[in-house]
């Protein structure tokens, strides 16, 4: 049709979006690689070529491996809780018996995902607080006083405490994605299984899980990518401490660049985050395509 035949008009409509994306998403990413090859400061124009020196330094820095381990831990625990529990809760709420309560539980479980991570971080900092905190007060109230501790102040528990707050926030989010996937399963499958005498647990294992297999994979990858991007909650709750025990890649980047003013080093860490998340995203796209082909 002639109405949509003019290429120039089309390009005019696309131009603003394209400009934004090219200038503020793609260009900085390309630029970042070059910036990691120089020594430079946050304010000022001087820069000195250092080549791959920062990458070598990162490879020898034990903090880098702490960060990598913490990101990995974050991703792993998030898969178990967000994808695992998210799926189980979604399946329960889609059961005939529980469906009439679904509206209420879905709203409540999802609610934390709309709150900013900063608020959740500050709130949990108070919940974990050694003297005024809810957690220690609760443990005292049920007679488990010997379990009380400064949750964020000890390197043994700090990382787990941060990860726990993130589970609190996001299980409901992943649950919602599963709810939609389960709703798409043909009802006949459940009906015929029920006639064969399959219980709720068997229906879950033999129908729900295989039917939402793709969603499980997708949600796992989203969660893993999220685990390698984490910044806000760590920065807010511990800023990488005590010591450097809760450092993750993004806080390592922030500290190098905006605390120690080694912007080249920060760029090099950013490049490493790019490679990790980009590879994971390619895996996600590949699986997406496989699913679409089926």
């Amino acid at each position, binding site marked *: *049709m*002639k*109405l949509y*035949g*003019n290429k120039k*008009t*089309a*390009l005019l*409509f*696309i131009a*603003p*979006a*394209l400009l934004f*994306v*090219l*200038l503020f*998403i793609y260009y*900085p*990413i390309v*630029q*970042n690689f070059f910036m990691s090859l120089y020594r430079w400061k*946050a*304010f000022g124009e001087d820069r000195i070529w250092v080549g791959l020196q920062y990458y070598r330094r990162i490879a020898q820095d034990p903090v880098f491996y702490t960060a990598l381990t913490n990101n990995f831990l974050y991703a792993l625990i998030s898969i178990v809780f967000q994808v695992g529990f998210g799926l189980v809760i979604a399946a*329960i709420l889609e059961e005939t*018996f*529980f469906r009439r*309560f679904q509206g209420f*539980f879905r*709203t409540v*479980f999802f*609610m*934390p995902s*709309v709150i*900013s991570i*900063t608020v959740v971080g*500050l*709130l*949990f900092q*108070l919940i974990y607080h050694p003297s005024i905190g*809810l957690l220690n*007060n609760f443990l005292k*109230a049920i007679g488990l006083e010997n379990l009380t501790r400064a949750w964020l102040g000890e390197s043994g528990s700090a990382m787990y405490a941060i990860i726990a707050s993130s589970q*609190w926030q996001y299980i*409901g989010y992943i649950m919602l*994605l599963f709810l939609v996937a389960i709703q798409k399963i043909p009802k006949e499958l459940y009906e015929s299984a029920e006639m064969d005498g399959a219980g709720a647990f068997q229906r879950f294992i033999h129908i729900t899980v295989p039917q939402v297999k793709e969603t499980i994979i*997708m949600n796992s990858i*989203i*969660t893993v990518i*999220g685990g390698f*991007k984490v*910044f806000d909650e760590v*920065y807010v709750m511990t800023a990488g401490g005590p010591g450097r025990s809760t450092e993750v890649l993004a806080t390592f*980047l*922030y500290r190098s*660049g905006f605390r120690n003013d080694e912007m080249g080093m920060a*760029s090099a860490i*950013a490049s490493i985050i*790019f490679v990790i*998340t*980009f590879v994971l995203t390619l895996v996600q796209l590949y699986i997406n395509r496989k699913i679409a082909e089926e």
Partner: protein
Amino acid sequence: MSKARRWNLSRALVMLALIIYAILIIYPLLWMLLSGFKDNQGLFLDTWALPKTWIWQNYVDAWNQGIGRYFVNSVIVTVSSVILTLIVSSCAAFALARFEFRGQNILLILIIGGLMLSPQVSLVSLFKFLQKLGIYNTYLALIIPYVAYRIPFTTFLIRSYMLSLPREVEDSAYIDGCTSLQVFAKIIMPMSKPILATGALLAAMSCWNEFMFALVFIESDKYKTIPVGLMNLRGSLSTDWTILMAGLTLSVLPMIIIFLVFQKQLVRGITSGGVKG
């Protein structure tokens, strides 16, 4: 049929587990809300009780000690970013959904491909780039990156919706002599209202809550948005926890209200994306 709706022991146990989980979610939020009405003594001694006297002054203090200013900044940044995102994205979505031309697919991949790239990676170079543009430490230092990072998803969302719209009205408008710009403004945009609302809600949520860019691209207190402002407030209040709790409550209220009112639109957007945050 009634068997499926009848209570039994295992159903009661599952129900109990759901209720406990719901309490685990609601209680911390309620604690935050109620502690905002207490004094420190009440917070220490009666952790679990309702406030003895409701100290509304905490909320007033939190507002006056910075939340008010940060709140206004967040509103300015969020509203500008959302409007700009919607305009730019719907134009691009329109061209990509309706026009047919060579190179269309490449442009589509370029724009939506932005979804794959995480903001952390460009934090440093964007910081430098914003300095060069002379907009570091202004509202624009947040608005422009927010818009850029919202465009890929919003365009994707609106384009899929536009593809599902019927073409008949446009055809007859064309016969009546309308140009493509008129068709866009008078037919497509009004028909896309529901998805524009969804896109706006999701964009508003992410801009309101964004922390990392706001931490790095803004230096002066007078331009700071709520998430970073709360960190300042924590520093300056040190042990006035109850005022901090009041501040936290004030800063989440808009999002909780929006969520409760527009739940349906939000859910539709989130489940069509497959991206987190």
